């Protein structure tokens, strides 16, 4: 009959009205500043620089100032200056490090190419989105102190990816250690062979950098956050 559709519709909205008061599943609104929904793991906003030790972020940056990201960045928002000296990196090799590492987040478009191309797993995508500032030329231009975030933070935002990265780095470190050990052994054998000729030729120090394994108190890959968008109250 004419009008039955209208009555049906009115019934639906009336059900909504009543249900909205006692059925929390109906209400999808997240009242943002007080309540936040969990960000999806793959959400990304701006780049960050991973360091190993939160206590000494500048000393333990994974970045080796190779400048690949700077060259790849489509809007060219990354600026890097290389250091003159070398420091041991995550795998223990002596490497350069950036004395200046700046990202202009007012220019950055969040494409994530820098993180993809980084061969040292140093630059990763952050999840911050409340980056409003009153001055675009100073407050949005982040330097390396502002960009550096400890590995534990990286684990907290991208647990799966961070676990993979850590495993890869650990493997690389192990390989490096074994290589170093083999080299040391070879050197020792050599040294033993040529002990009489030349005493005490110092080989590569076999010790791995102590920072990496110590600081990465990351959650296990199994303890991945639930992927639902349930409200965080």
């Amino acid at each position, binding site marked *: 009959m*004419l009008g039955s559709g209208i009555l049906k*519709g009115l019934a639906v*909205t*009336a059900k*909504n*009205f009543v249900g*909205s008061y006692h059925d929390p599943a109906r*209400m999808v*609104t997240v009242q943002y500043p007080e309540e936040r929904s969990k960000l999806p793991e793959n959400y990304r906003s701006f780049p960050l620089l991973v360091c190993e030790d939160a206590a000494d972020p500048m000393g333990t940056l994974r970045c080796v100032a190779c400048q690949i990201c700077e060259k790849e960045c489509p809007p060219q928002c990354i600026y890097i200056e290389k250091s003159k000296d070398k420091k041991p990196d995550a795998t223990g090799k002596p490497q350069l490090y950036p004395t200046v590492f700046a990202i202009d987040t007012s220019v950055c478009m969040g494409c994530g190419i820098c993180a993809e191309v980084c061969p040292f797993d140093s630059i990763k995508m952050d999840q911050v989105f409340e980056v409003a500032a009153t001055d675009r030329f100073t407050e949005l231009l982040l330097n390396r102190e502002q960009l550096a975030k400890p590995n534990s933070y990286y684990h907290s935002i991208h647990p799966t990816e961070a676990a993979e990265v850590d495993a890869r780095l650990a493997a690389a470190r192990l390989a490096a250690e074994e290589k170093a050990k083999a080299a040391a052994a070879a050197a020792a054998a050599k040294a033993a062979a040529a002990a009489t000729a030349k005493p005490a030729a110092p080989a590569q120090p076999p010790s791995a950098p102590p920072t990496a394994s110590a600081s990465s108190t990351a959650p296990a890959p199994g303890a991945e956050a639930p992927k639902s968008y349930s409200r965080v109250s």
Partner: protein
Amino acid sequence: MSVTAEAGTFLERAPLVLRDAVVQWFPAPLQWLAHHLITIVAILAVFGVFFAFTTVAERKLLGRLQNRLGPNRAGLPWIKGSKLFGLTQPFADAVKALTKEDIVPAAADKLLHFLAPVLVVAFSLMTFAVLPFGRNLIPVELDAALLYFFAAGSATELAIFMAGWASRNKYSLLAAMRALAQVISYELPLMLSVVPVVLVVGSLSTSEIALAQGGWTFGFLPHWHVFTPWGFFGFLLFLVAALAESNRAPFDLPEAESELIAGHLTEYSGFKYALFFMAEYFGLTALSGLGVTLFLGGWQAPFAFLEFIPSYAWFMLKLIGMIGFFIWARGTLLRLRIDQLTRLAWQFMVPLALINLGNAAFWALTSGWSGPLQFVRWGVSIALVVGPFILLGRGLNGGRGPRTYRYATS
């Protein structure tokens, strides 16, 4: 309001007593003026506040109807963290509207552009003058009150035209024409749905119509017009026509904020826009008040034992109920197309309203019937409502079966 009610509880008499007490302070020659001014100020204050809270209630209710929360953040400005369920939202809106820039197009007719919102608010406020808000609580007792109501209401059309034309914008003008076509189309069913009440009561006076609906059958069945077949159907027609007349969804084509740029209000901004908005709500409130008076028993209590509650409280309760229904309809129904809109008015509502008029005439003629003839009376009257409704509904739907959706599911 010439007669001060001696009868009734103190609460029932309170507004009149208060008014008379204030009037006493004025010198005798000015008392008549004070008398009317107090009435005007009371209406402005009560319905101004009512308008403010109608807007927030509408937004909250719409939210709930769509499983949202609605505005709930506006609190007191100087207390941090106070929220008050967002009840101060209308005042924040008012401040925003007042402080916005008032842009008048360079080519606009400045005088008419200014006059249109003023007139539209003035006319919509004038309609409140003849609504009986309670026992003996009517601002102006007029013999032809209903006619006055529609006269004041129809004058708003002029303001719509002025708004559209004075903006000197072709979209505004076209939208004003559309709005006028809608308002004029629906004025006819609106009035035709009201005429049966006049026919049965035998008076154009709103206070007499409200009085005529007093009393109860068996002590609990009120004699409201909505509880008669013709009254119920007239009320339905009135509801639909009132929705269209006050440009509310699903008949909000003149404004259609998601499709047009507010139609004839395109060139209005700031407080002038707010005035149109205000006039729309005043018109809605006045039409709801008229519907309450004509069909829902006015200020009469629904049950005899509830009469201790003052009559104006009953009127306001019914008014809030009507407006709540309008909001509910807005949260439910989709906007009509202009051809559907006029088709509904001319092909469906006008014929049915005319038939309903005959139905009411039959009802008035057979008022003497009693006993088993009462059943005949009710049966014939109900048949006169349901028959044409179904037949016309089916006839108009011929060849327009249930709509099938190609891309949407369920």
